[in-house]
């Protein structure tokens, strides 16, 4: 029973984290345009940064905590699909850290543009989430 509740918590946290992550990535990817018109968008960036601090980041920690508990309770270690999935989640988490710091800089009217690779962050996040869905549902290996 506890397994199902943990699974529900994990999935809910994943949904919140992934949506917050995509919003952060899309905001950062369009940062140059947003900063150019800072007066109109400052409140929006600050709102997204606050959401990231209060909701998206805590959701990521819930994802990790509930996910590891599920892996232990379900005796999923060391299934190859889980190891690959963990690798993707580590990369997404690291990307989230960089995005959170960038959002913070943007909210402080720092006009230095984010690194060019950040333009690809939304696509990378969607690809990562898609791969995770396949690994978890299909368990190809």
């Amino acid at each position, binding site marked *: 029973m506890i397994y199902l509740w943990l699974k529900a918590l994990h999935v809910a946290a994943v949904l919140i984290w992934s949506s917050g992550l995509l919003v952060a990535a899309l905001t950062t990817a369009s940062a140059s345009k947003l900063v150019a018109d800072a007066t109109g968008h400052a409140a929006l960036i600050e709102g997204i940064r606050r959401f990231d601090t209060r909701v998206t980041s805590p959701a990521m920690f819930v994802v990790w*905590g509930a996910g590891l*508990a599920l892996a232990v309770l379900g005796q999923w270690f060391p299934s190859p699909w889980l190891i690959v999935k963990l690798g993707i989640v580590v990369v997404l988490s*690291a990307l989230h*850290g960089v995005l*959170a*710091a*960038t959002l913070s800089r943007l909210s*402080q*009217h*720092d006009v230095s543009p984010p690194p060019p690779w950040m333009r690809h962050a939304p696509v990378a996040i969607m690809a990562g989430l898609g791969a995770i869905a396949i690994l978890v549902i299909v368990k190809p290996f």
Partner: protein
Amino acid sequence: MTPQQRAEALSQLRRMRVVSLIEGSTLLLLVLVAVPLKHVAGLTVATRIMGPVHGLAFLAYGWMLIRTVAGGGWSRADILRLSIAALIPFGAFINERALARRQAVLAAR
């Protein structure tokens, strides 16, 4: 640096210090309490509990480190020191002091 940027940097340093202390404490509990309990007293439950707890603390530290250094203003030596300290017992406490000094310098500006 604007007052808003300084306030944000100080707040990030505070969070980093807290996570550093948690990571260091859980590592010590794992290495100095749980592992001896497992091998000397046969209490495997100690490592079964402390292992994942420290694992989560380590992940939180790693994430907070990325979040902090991505904000800028950190040398490669600083980043290397912050990374290595998380791997060795008591390293996090040395780190925490270094972070506190950086926080004091920033606050005094």
